């Protein structure tokens, strides 16, 4: 008697690869499609979880591509004005459609009808990155001018990287009824004004996201033939849903769609890989350990776990580095021996 599961690998078995592994050692990455070395340029974009990835890439010492560096500013000012959060100052690109339309705006002359939204304080902001400039702009023209300059930088984010990391974040979005442009935030939330005649809610399905991602990846490869892409799905739940149901139910739908599409991209393009940070953070093995007290924000421990798996599996590292990080073992002792602490310490702990 035999069955098809005889001889499968340990990582294919729950008990061996999940249940019997210490939480912090769990590693779901298998068969990465490429390795990354310190000479390769890496660019990032995506939802807010991608910000963690960006920070860690810089900390680890990768060649992290920053097309808008704000090098003339102080470090404090750069941070306040969101320089370096991603490879360019596009803010959070939550949906595949946002990514696609940004590409089309840079390379194909796509011109959105909405060019500036006014805030309550009278300042103007870019509808496609309304939080990027905390001070806002004095005029609509100033917003448009800043966007022109921004788009010139974004061009290099698509043309130059060897690795493009994109984190799929949401399926729910708001779009313009006039030209179909999708915004990161609903009009009226931080700027602009909600007019049901002009804007509508959309919850993308698998077919929509599949189409947008496929188009984007094909177009990206056409302008940057050496690029490899890493897709991740954000483990951060929705802060709010516009669907008339529980936000948790909407979260499950949204993440499921994105996870399915990531899988479809993996099947379609052999230069695209999927990094399972979503599984590392949300997996039942972690029991919620990797979320802050609001059960939504991912904590630094969870990010560190994801990045350990990333570095271990994707980073080419010289063997000498491995040797340098080990420690001489303590001399071997038989099981019959062990630690006896000082009497005066034991004294202190006697009842």
């Amino acid at each position: 008697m035999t069955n098809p599961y005889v001889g499968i690998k340990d990582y294919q078995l729950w008990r061996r690869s999940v249940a019997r592994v210490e939480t912090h050692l769990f590693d779901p990455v298998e068969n990465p499609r490429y390795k990354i070395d310190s000479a390769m340029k890496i660019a990032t974009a995506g939802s807010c979880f991608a910000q963690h990835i960006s920070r860690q890439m810089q900390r680890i010492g990768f060649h992290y591509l920053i097309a808008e560096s704000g090098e003339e500013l102080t470090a404090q000012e750069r941070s306040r004005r969101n320089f370096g959060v991603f490879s360019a100052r596009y803010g959070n690109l939550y949906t595949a459609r946002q990514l696609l339309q940004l590409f089309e705006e840079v390379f194909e002359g796509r011109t959105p009808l909405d060019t500036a939204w006014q805030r309550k304080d009278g300042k103007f902001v870019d509808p496609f990155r309304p939080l990027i400039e905390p001070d806002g702009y004095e005029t609509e023209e100033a917003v448009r001018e800043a966007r022109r300059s921004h788009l010139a930088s974004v061009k290099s984010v698509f043309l130059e990287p060897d690795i493009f990391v994109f984190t799929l974040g949401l399926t729910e979005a708001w779009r313009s009824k006039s030209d179909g442009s999708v915004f990161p935030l609903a009009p009226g939330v931080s700027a602009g004004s909600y007019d049901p005649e002009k804007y509508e809610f959309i919850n993308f399905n698998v077919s929509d996201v599949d189409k947008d991602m496929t188009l984007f990846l094909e177009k990206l490869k056409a302008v940057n033939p050496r690029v490899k892409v890493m897709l991740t799905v954000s483990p951060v739940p929705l802060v709010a849903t516009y669907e008339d149901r529980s936000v948790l139910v909407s979260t499950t739908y949204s993440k499921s769609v994105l996870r399915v599409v990531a899988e479809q991209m993996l099947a379609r393009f052999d230069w695209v890989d999927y990094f399972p940070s979503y599984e590392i953070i949300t997996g039942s093995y972690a029991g919620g350990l990797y979320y802050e007290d609001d059960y939504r924000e991912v904590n630094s421990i969870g990010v560190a776990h994801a990045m350990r798996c990333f570095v271990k599996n994707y980073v080419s590292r010289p063997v000498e580095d491995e040797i340098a990080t080990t420690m001489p073992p303590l001399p071997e002792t038989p099981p019959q021996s062990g630690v006896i602490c000082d009497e005066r310490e034991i004294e202190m702990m006697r009842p």
Partner: protein
Amino acid sequence: MEKWLLISNCNTYGLANSLKLLSNSFSLDCFDVFELMKNMETYKETMPGYDRVIINPAIQFVEYDFTLLENVSRIPGIDFDAYHPDLCYLFADGQRIYGPTAGYHSMLVFAAFEAGYSVEKTQRLFRREIFEHCGFLSRWESERDRLMKVFSFFNLDISAPFRSWSRGESFMYGLGHPKARPIHDVAKVFLESIGMEPNKSDLVPHDTLIDGICLPVYPEIAETFGFRGSRMFKVLGEYRLMSLEEFTQKSFEVYSQWAPGEIAAEYFFADRYNHVKNVIAEADK
């Protein structure tokens, strides 16, 4: 009802309380190894009167042949250094040296002292890059395997509880000082190993080792093991924490009482200490 006796190290009282909570089938007396040595003659007479004597195998250095007893069981202590790889013992004039955290010293602090660092410069050694090069982040697997091997030698399988101890927190205060839960789980595993069914209860006795020194797991090390960590050292016998700066300052005061070269790392830690010293020398270049 059977009469049991437990003799162990600093784990004695936590282990005894756990065994009593976990079973109503025996009465239990206990004392630690130093008490045994003090009153050896008395205990030589009383020990054979017990139905079962449980010892920590590490206490077998005492001048008593435990094989003379009819029913001896062995429960090893939980020794685990992955959380505290910076720890070492130091000696001078053939005696162990005591500092702000009793006999426990930081290799980094002692190496910095020997290299002539200031307290402030020493603080700056406590960073990821140095820890990585010292090998402080790579102790887990070998320590886990060693611990499992020790317990397996005494037919105790602690692999399942071990995984739960390490979820989101450290389970050790120092090299040989576990928190209350691991001690309790070891007691449970022991009872099961001799065919006794433990009481169904979720009670865990109070933590007897928190009165001792509690060494921090440095944040960079803790992050690797899935929790946050600290740089605060708990002093002996008091509920008071010491900062890394205060710990370094007080350690330096102790070391300065000896002439250069008089203090050395104990044999057990010598290779590690030399490695740490080399890392610091390299970092200084």
